[in-house]
């Protein structure tokens, strides 16, 4: 875990939103999914997922309900609300703009003087 960089502040929420846009899932599933989707680039400090989920619930982006897993165990499932979907697309745009900007800075070769 220590060999992989920690997540940027606030990025976790975006990743959660993205994961949930694929369908409702429980916390552990989400952690797996994010790691999988990022191809292991960064691991979620798994415990920190839960405070983030609690915050997002208060913001109205996600809802939760208890259901049984395929292995017949009780788990809390989270799902995206319409508001959460809007938030995801907002954050995606924001992220892309930021990433583009950062890329331009990094690719700067020095034009003019």
């Amino acid at each position, binding site marked *: *875990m220590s060999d992989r960089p920690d997540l940027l502040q606030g990025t976790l929420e975006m990743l959660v939103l993205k994961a949930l846009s694929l369908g409702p899932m429980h916390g552990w599933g989400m952690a797996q999914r994010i790691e999988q989707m990022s191809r292991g680039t960064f*691991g979620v400090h798994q415990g920190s997922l839960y*405070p*983030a989920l*609690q915050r997002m619930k*208060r*913001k*109205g982006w996600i809802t939760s309900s208890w259901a049984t897993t395929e292995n017949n165990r009780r788990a809390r499932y989270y799902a995206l609300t319409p508001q959460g979907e809007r938030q995801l697309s907002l954050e995606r745009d924001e992220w892309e703009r930021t990433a583009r900007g950062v890329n331009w800075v990094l690719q700067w070769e020095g034009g003019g003087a």
Partner: protein
Amino acid sequence: MSFFSDIRERLHMVLFRAEAEREMDEEMRFHLSMETERLVREGLPREEAARRARITFGGLEWNKEEVRDARGTRWLEEFGSDVRYAVRTLRRTPAFTTAAILTLALGIGATTSIFTVVNALFLRSPEGVHQPSDLVRLYFVRNEGMIQVPNGGPGSYIDFRAIRASAPAFSGLAAFMSDRDFDLGRGVGAQRIRGRAVSQSFFPVLGVDMAAGRWFFPQEDSTVGTHPVAVISNALWQSEFGGDPGVLGRALLVNGQSLTVVGIAAADFSGIEIDHVDIWVPFSMAPALGLVDQGSSDWRDNPAMATVNVLGRVPGSTPRELVAQQAGIAVRHAAERTPQLDPTPDVLLGALVPAGDPGRSQAEKLSLWLLVVTVLVLLVACANVASLMLSRALARERETAVRSSLGAARSRLFRQHLTESMVMAFGGGIAGLFVALWGARVAAQFSLPSGAATLDSSVLLFALTLTLATGILFGIIPAWQAGRVQPADGLKEAAGGARPYRARFRGALVGLQVAMTAVLLVGAVLFLRSLRQVYAVDPGVDAGKILVVSVDVAGAGFSLPERNRFYTDALRRVGQIPGIEGVSTSAFGPFSANRYGGAFHVRGHAPLPINGPYMDWVGAGYFQTVGTAILRGSGITEQHVRGTEFVAVVNESLATALMPLGDVLGMCVAVGEQTRSDGCTRIVGIAENQRSGYLDADVDPALYLARAQDPEALPWAGTDLLVRTSGDPSVIAGEVRSAVQSMHPGMPFVSVQPLEQRIRDELLPYRVGATLFTLFAGLALLLAAVGLYGMLGYSIAERRPELGIRKSLGAAGGDVVRFLILRAMRPVIFGLVLGLVAAYAGGRVLEAMLYDITAREPATFIIVAIFLSVVGFIAIYLPARQAANVDPMVTLRAE
């Protein structure tokens, strides 16, 4: 919406905290077991897998705390535990808690009860009215001409018509006359109800619903006298007709007129003022019902009939200035064609509630003053509780210090102490509501309508605000001090070191209490002295023993001979009732609002340059009956009947005016018709002055004529029966009423009122002021005395070792007492001076409410200074003596 989801989520978390905790636990355990299983599937031994899962998860407890923080309910949870802690603590010291809560209940209750009355009288919107905030009342300002109302008053129907025609800013305009007594029925069952003549637009503009039937049609408000219809209140419908729907279309006998009931107002509407109205009639019926003079011309074209109140509906978006401007232009335009009135009238807008009246009434001023007074009482109460809390803080210093050294944050300690104050404040607030309800009922006894003592949402809001404010006010300083306690200081053996900052603070509190009490006492003394002046007034009649019996004989259609027969019979019948000392008649009677000034001159002389004289036609034995002394000559007697020489009695004022013309007794004067012929009325007596208004200083000249000599003198003015009773007149009033009421099957409602009723309104502000000021000042005095007693008790407890040492070193008990008293009297003297200076500076504003005394007479201040010093001294002396009598060895051993 995210705001609501946030609130909902937080609320859920608070309400279902235990459940949330359990679910969080379960969720995290589920996570760990899933991760462990995944690692086991990857080939790790189970134990290693579990360890790895925990590491990947991060600190379990730490993450739980993070989740709890993320719920955003931590402060609420702490608040909950603070409240529980506060309740536990308060229950451990029941004496302290009871004292504090009672003190607060009295303070909050007194203030809220006055507010309840102010709210009911001036602030509360009437029920059953649609969107009352969009309604405005119009006040007409006239500075010249016959009718002068510089502060704004009712207008004429001409004004109403003009505004209705040319002020489009109003979405609706309605007019009404002030409510009046109406007679319902005749004979034994006759009764009195409140009624009001209104424009056809009245209910539609107010947006009042009908319980049954209909409101007036527009044509029913058109031609005068041709539409005898009425709408009755739900209350009258229930009480008189048992809610029978058949009442619609039935005729009611109102003021002798038969009116058809066309509708019943919705139950929630009982008029727009605090007095309930039972019946509404269209303006067109006003003359027939005797509400306006039955002149030959239409009263609605008479600019002098300024008895029309106007209210309009203005959509919320319309600027009020525009509305006022349009109305002003309309009435000025109308005034150009009506030269009797001020050519440039103006219109002021006010709210529907009486507080919107641009000219404040005496009652409103008095109420606001009382509110200020009760706030002072509340402040004294707060100071007291703060003082109590400081004493207790001493006892709890150890506890606070322990908590602080165990790591309780300073802000948390502050919050905890403040919570404790709030819990007490709420206890006081709830108890205060009961005090308020009781207090408002008592206040309502002062001739306020019964609706005055109701708790509505604004009263509750007021009480809540007061509670919060007091909780903060008396709690903030003790709480701040608790937050300041240094663990080391607090834990040291309290070696009796007085904490000077605290002593100073308590001294200041006591000083302030004394100051506020002094202000209230000055007010109370002023009002009491003023009331004594009021009672010392000799009105020239025995107001407290007289009943006034009025019958509208003209309205009942009695012919002149019938009237005279009626009066003769009535005098005889009433005179036979046991407990009656005398009966006579008078056209107007003492303190009457109606007076009559007729033509008058002394034979052989030009009319006198005097006001009046006002004339009254009285029966035999009038002066003896009402208790007015005959100073010279005789009164009106049985011998003064038709056919004998006309006689008159003059009052002292008229006698003084006549004196220069010769001997008043036996003087020959011309009265009324006689001024145009050569008739003569002989003055046979001079009577003591009767005040025209109870408190009017100057008494106008008055002339009393014998009714029996000229019964037709004033055909329009009925004659009142004046009944002198041996005891309390109100006891016998019912008997008198039924005796007269049953004399004739067509008898209109007989009104029987104590003569005092006529001066009641005049005396009311003085009585209310004196009673409530005395009550509240007494309350403040009691609280301040308790505060003083408490402060000394505290400082004695603090100084006990020092006192013990002093005594064991040979100080006599008396020295110790003197030492303690000197110290404790300092804040008392300081507060007394401060309070008296404040009262001296502010007393002027009270002067308008005082009778015949000024606010700055030294006597008032001397009385208060002596009284307060004595009470203060006693409150100090008692605990000081006790302290001095304690055996020094006992106190020293305790160390």
